[in-house]
C-alpha cells in the first residue's frame, strides 16, 4: 500500500485553484499519453469559459489526430474535409459575424493539403482564430513526413531522415502568414511546461478577444509533440522538442496588432 498524502480538509470550494473546465466534455481524450493536442484543447476551452462565450462560439475540426475534437469541446462544431477548415470558418464567420469562430488544424491539414485555404483565408483577413498544432509529423496516419518535418528528421516516409534536396524544405508557414496584410496577430507558442502553457493561454485569449475588433486573422502556432510519431516517451519528447523544434521554430510573437514584431539581434 502506498502512503496516503491526501489533505481532505483543505478541499473546499474556496480553496479550489484549478479544475478542468466545464467547456470540455467528460469524454476521455483519445490522444496518446502526453500529447499536446489535449493541453491545447483545454486552453481553448478555458478561454471560452473565461470569456463566457460558450453559446457564441463555433469551432471547426480538421482531419488529423484532432478530427474528433468535437467530442471534447462542449460547443457547436463542424468537421471539415482535410485542409478545408479555413474555408468553412470563412463562411461561418460571414454568415454569423457576431459569433466567435475558430479552426483547429494540424501541420499536414493546414500547411500541406490546406495551404491554399489557409493562405487565402489569412490574406482575405477573415475575422477568425486559427490554432495550428505543429508536431512536424502526420500523427494520425502513423508518423509520415509533414511539411514541417525538420531537416534530417526521420519519419515513416523518410526513414533515413528528411533529405531536403530530395524531399524539399520544411515550410515555415507561420512566418509566411505573418507577412500577409490580412493577419492581425501571429504568434508561436508551446504547451509542454507550466510557464509556456500559461503564456499560450494568454495568446489564445488574445486571439479570441481580437475577433471583437474585426481586424483580421489571429493565428497561433503551437509547437507540439507527437510522442507516437517521434517514437519517444512523453518526457523524452519534450526534451527533443526543446532541443530540435524550438531552434528551428522559435517561440514568440511574429505580429501583434497588425504590426510585424522586429527581432532584436
Amino acid at each position: 500500500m502506498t502512503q496516503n498524502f491526501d489533505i481532505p480538509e483543505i478541499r473546499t470550494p474556496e480553496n479550489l485553484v484549478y479544475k478542468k473546465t466545464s467547456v470540455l466534455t467528460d469524454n476521455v481524450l483519445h490522444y496518446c499519453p502526453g500529447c499536446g493536442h489535449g493541453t491545447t484543447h483545454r486552453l481553448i476551452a478555458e478561454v471560452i469559459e473565461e470569456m463566457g462565450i460558450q453559446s457564441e462560439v463555433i469551432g471547426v475540426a480538421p482531419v488529423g489526430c484532432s478530427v474528433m475534437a468535437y467530442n471534447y469541446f462542449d460547443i457547436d462544431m463542424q468537421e471539415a474535409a482535410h485542409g478545408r477548415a479555413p474555408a468553412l470558418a470563412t463562411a461561418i464567420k460571414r454568415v454569423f459575424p457576431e459569433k466567435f469562430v475558430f479552426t483547429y488544424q494540424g501541420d499536414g491539414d493546414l500547411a500541406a493539403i490546406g495551404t491554399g485555404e489557409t493562405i487565402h483565408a489569412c490574406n482575405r483577413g477573415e475575422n477568425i482564430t486559427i490554432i495550428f498544432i505543429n508536431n512536424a509529423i502526420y500523427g494520425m496516419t502513423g508518423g509520415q513526413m509533414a511539411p514541417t518535418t525538420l531537416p534530417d528528421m526521420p519519419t515513416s516516409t523518410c526513414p533515413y531522415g528528411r533529405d531536403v534536396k530530395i524531399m524539399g524544405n520544411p515550410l515555415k508557414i507561420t512566418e509566411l502568414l505573418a507577412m500577409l496584410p490580412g493577419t492581425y496577430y501571429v504568434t508561436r507558442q508551446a504547451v509542454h511546461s507550466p510557464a509556456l502553457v500559461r503564456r499560450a493561454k494568454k495568446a489564445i485569449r488574445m486571439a479570441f478577444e481580437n475577433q471583437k475588433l474585426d481586424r483580421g486573422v489571429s493565428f497561433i502556432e503551437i509547437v507540439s509533440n507527437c510522442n507516437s510519431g517521434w517514437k519517444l516517451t512523453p518526457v523524452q519528447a519534450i526534451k527533443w522538442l526543446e532541443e530540435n523544434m524550438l531552434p528551428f521554430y522559435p517561440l514568440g510573437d511574429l505580429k501583434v496588432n497588425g504590426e510585424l514584431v522586429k527581432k532584436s539581434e
Partner: protein
Amino acid sequence: MKELRLMKGNEAFAEAAIRAGADAYFGYPITPQSEVMEYLMAEKPYERTGMIVLQSESELGAINMVYGAAACGKRALTSSSSPGISLMQEGISYIAGSELPCLIMNVVRGGPGLGTIQPSQSDYFQATKGGGHGDYRLIVLAPSSVQEMFDFVSLGFELAFKYRNPVMMLSDGVIGQMMEKVELSEQQGRLTNQQIDELYPWATTGKKPGKERRIITSLELDPGRQEKHNLKLQEKYRKIETTEVRYETLHCDDAEYLLVAFGSSARICQKAMDLGRSKGIKIGLMRPITLYPFPYSIIEQLSKQVKGILVVELNAGQMIEDVRLGSHDRIKVEHYGRFGGMIPSPVDVLYAMEKQIIGG
C-alpha cells in the same frame, strides 16, 4: 403585375438566388457560367437582402464555404462548370455525408479534361450516379429554359431543406448563355437567425445553455453506426425516388415513337418532334426534369406503347442507360448524340430517328 425581363440563363439563376432569399453565394470564375457571379456582384445583393457574395480562391474553397454556411442553417449556393464541379466533388461528398442542404449549379461544358468551353451534357453520370466517393445521391434538376433557370432555384432550396440533401441544377452552356423572357417571382425574405434556430435543430448556431451541442460531421468510425447512417441515407433516397420524380411529356398520348431528352437537347427534340409530326410520323417527347430521381415509371409505361425510343443527349450516351433500365429492353432504345460542343439540328435528330429507330 407580372415582372418580365429578358435575361441570360446564368443571370436568371443569379437573380433567382437573391429573390429566393439565399444567404450566401460562393464561387470561382469559369466559362460558361461566369455571368452568375458577375451579375451578383453588380447587383450588390448584400445591399438588397443582406446576401453574401464571395469569390473564393478555388472551387474547393467555394464548396467548402458552402459547407460552412449550410451547416449554420443558411441558404448557401455555388455555381461552376464541369472542371470546377470536378474539383468540388470532395466537398459535395462531405456535404452529402453530413446531410447539409445546398444548391450547386453546373453549367456543363465539354470534357474530358479542360475539354472545351462549348455546351455539353457529358456530366450526367457524374451528377446522377455519384461524382465523389461514397454511397450518396444528389437531387438533380435539369432546366431547359431560362425560366427554369430561375424557377428551379427556389424549388432546389425547398427540396434541399426538405431532405437535408445537396441539390444540383444540371444545366449547360446553351441554357446558361441564351437569352429569353423570364417571369420573375417576388422577393422572398431571408430567414432570421431566430427562425433558423427554430426550423433547423441540427444547425450549428452556437450551443444554447442547457441544450445539447450540435455537431456537423460525416465521420463515424464505428462500423455499426456508419452502416446505420448509410441506411438512413438510403431510406431518404428511396423516399425521394417515390415522391420527387418530375418530368414533362409532349404528344405522348398517340405517340408511336418516343424521344427522350433533358435540358437543351429537349428543346431541339421538341422541334424535331414537330418536324416529324408534320411529315405524319407520330413522335412524342418525354423530358425528365429530375435526373435523379429518374422518371423510370413513365419510361416503363411508354415502352409498352411506343415502337422505339431515341435518347438524344449532348454526350456519348449516358442517360440512355437509365432509359434502357426503365424500358426493360422491351423495345429498341438507341442513342443519338453530338459532343465536344457540337449541337445537332432538329433535322439531324429526325434523321437519326428515321434511320436508327423507324427504319432500323
